[in-house]
């Protein structure tokens, strides 16, 4: 099973190399550190959330509410600062809001047993509504200097806080997914929840934890967005969930759950970012860029099916198969 994804990751890597070569030939600036940082910086909030989304989708679920949670987090922060709350305290409260929102999703999905598509669609609307109620149609901009600086300046050399957080989170979640019992359970539950239930695994608790983590990380991403842009409005991070899910699926994570890796997601992130950057260098408009990403996504969903056929054709030749 995973041999399929191994080859998929190999394919992604090949695509990435091609894009990198094309981009560097288009512009000598492309491979410079500052361009690369800049490139990451523009989408850093989405790619942070795509890491936890990888877990959620491998687990056989989906979280559509992450974009709205990012918006709610940014707006709640803006509103509190506007009301005179110290920014540091506001940050902590926002992270708690993220946990609570995720716990709400988790409760209805894991304990009540509703489909995550429905529950998180409802909270997508609900969280966004709350965000708009908080800031109405204003923009809030007067954040403390240290907060803006965290979002806009390098923390270690030229590397900003958000990018460091992304890398740390990637390493941490990679270890969790591939090396721990929790990671193994994520795959087992996504492969077949009934099998997990019958093996005494507390699947409800597992899903509850994942959705809380998703809410927390989305709230963190919302804060990072507020810091980077230095302003919040009611439509912050509007529609981000689709870009995030696109990256994860492009990375080879099965929408039916049970398979995929964070390495795949990471490669998909690099591809999407470099592709957009390259097309921007060619003066291709944003809409066409989006179209190209869409075609890539369709290919990523269709390709494994053809791949599977190829595997079936070779059935009988023992392949080294690995599952997590």
């Amino acid at each position: 099973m995973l041999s399929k994804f191994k080859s998929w990751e190999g394919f992604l890597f090949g695509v990435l190399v091609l894009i990198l070569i094309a981009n560097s030939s288009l512009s000598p600036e492309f491979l410079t550190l500052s361009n690369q940082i800049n490139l990451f910086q523009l989408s850093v909030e989405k790619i942070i959330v795509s890491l936890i989304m990888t877990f959620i989708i491998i687990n056989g679920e989906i979280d559509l509410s992450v974009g709205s949670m990012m918006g709610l987090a940014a707006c709640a922060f803006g509103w509190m600062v506007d009301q005179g709350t110290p920014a540091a305290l506001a940050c902590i409260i926002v992270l708690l809001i993220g946990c609570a929102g995720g716990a709400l999703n988790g409760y209805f999905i894991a304990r009540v047993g509703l489909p995550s598509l429905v529950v998180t669609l409802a909270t997508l609307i609900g969280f966004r509504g709350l965000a708009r109620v908080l800031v109405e149609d204003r923009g809030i901009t007067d954040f403390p200097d240290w907060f803006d600086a965290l979002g806009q300046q390098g923390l270690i050399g030229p590397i900003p806080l958000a990018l460091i957080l992304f890398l740390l989170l990637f390493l941490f979640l990679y270890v969790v997914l591939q090396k721990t019992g929790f990671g193994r359970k994520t795959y087992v539950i996504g492969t077949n929840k009934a099998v997990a239930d019958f093996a005494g695994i507390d699947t409800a608790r597992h899903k509850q934890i994942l959705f809380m983590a998703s809410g927390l990380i989305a709230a963190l991403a919302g804060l990072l967005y507020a810091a980077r842009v230095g302003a919040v409005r009611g439509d912050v991070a509007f529609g981000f969930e689709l870009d995030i899910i696109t990256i994860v699926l492009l990375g080879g994570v099965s929408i039916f759950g049970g398979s995929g890796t964070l390495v795949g997601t990471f490669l998909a992130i690099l591809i999407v970012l470099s592709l957009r950057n390259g097309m921007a260098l060619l003066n291709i408009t944003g809409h066409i860029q989006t179209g190209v990403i869409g075609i890539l996504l369709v290919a990523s969903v269709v390709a494994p099916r053809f791949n599977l056929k190829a595997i079936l054709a070779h059935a009988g030749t023992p392949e080294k198969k690995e599952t997590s």
Partner: protein
Amino acid sequence: MAETILELLDISKSFEMTHALKNMSLELKAGEVHAIVGENGAGKSTMIKIMTGVHKPTSGEIRIDGQARTLSGTQAAREAGIAAMYQEPMVFPDLDVAENIFISARNKGLFLKPTQQRQAARALVTRLGMSLDVELAASGLTLAEQQIVEIARALSEDVRVLIMDEPTASLSAYEASQLRRIAKTLAQEGVAVVYISHRLEEIFEIADRVTVIRDGGHISTRPISETTADLMIAEMVGRDVGNYFAKIPGTATDTVALKVRNLAVDDVFEGVNFDLHKGEVLCFSGLVGARRTDVALALFGVKPATRGTIEVNGTAVEIRHPKQAMDIGIAYVSEDRRKLGLAMPMSIQSNTSLATLGKFLRRFGLLDRAEERNVAEAFRKRLNIRTPNVDIAVGTLSGGNQQKVMLAKWLNMEPEILIFDEPTRGIDVGAKAEVHELIREFAKAGGAALVISSDLPEVMALGDRNLVMREGRQMGVIASENATQEKIMALATGQQNLREAS
């Protein structure tokens, strides 16, 4: 008697390696109720599927009105007037009764105006001697009423052969008697009714002729007046017990591992009582629908018992989740490997540790993969799982090897009480013997094994005692020295009622 409508001549059907039907013959006449009886797995459902065009026979001939015909699919069978009705009727819950009856484009009723359609539906229902509001949505119908809808649908398509597959299995006594009356009515109208049932008493009530099948072959066809329940059971069981597995001497001790009293799940089963001893293999026998698996699910906490008591090693316990059951040493090897037992795309290694991940967790929740691998490798050798290594996805293994991986998964828990649900279903004879040996080994080492099996030779070979269930009730417990397949079958079909005969 009347003319022959449908004939099966020397029909054989094989699926890859297994022969589901071997030279099966059957003759159906207009106006008769023709009962077919046989054990689980005797080939009844394959035969139905041949008659309804779902499967094509590997060899043999189907004759309709004396003419050889090939049924190219279910549509062709329907056009020839052959319809089947299953335990779970096919109705569309959001359509009303009349719309459900005229759902098929084959009967012109689909193109009638709603009022005409309802009228025609009413006429059909009345013809069956029933009263049913044809404007009711099907979702509000009882199971029995849904079956009537299905029969009316078949009637509207001018059915000539109606196959009823255990139609009364889930009905109340009154509903069942109504349904039997309908079957009789249809036969009087000239339909050939094929009636498949495990309830021998109802066969004597309505059947004109009875065909016994066993191991995919035809055993006998007799007018009902020339047969008896004992004869039918003997013919159903038939084969020589010694053929398959030799009886293994028991290792039961006097220590009770599991004591179950008056266990019940409301509306599912009730009054289950037994003691399971250490070192013992207790078999649960019964037909499909006897609710044996539900007892296992109650003991494993999947669908907890609503009444009764469970004691493990002398301590009263309440089991509400599989985790609780596992904590007190109960493991359950499910009959459904694909849906409930194994994570098919995952490796043997991952599946072996599935129920016991906690044993492999180290600091910070890290998984000790080296240890996990050692354990999986050890089980691979001990259980003789035929595969080069433990990295292979279990989905690619044979049924027997998958069953062994399931065993590995639960044996690693070192359970005191192991419940096996149909441990050898769908695996070949060689692997069966190996699985039996493993179960025996488990008992010999002091474990208490509860084996649910529909395979009578298996029950005879394995069980120290046999608990027989029928339709959610415990019919009796027979010690192996007194057990015969005929006795078990008589209890399972409700021909005999004995309590604690051991």
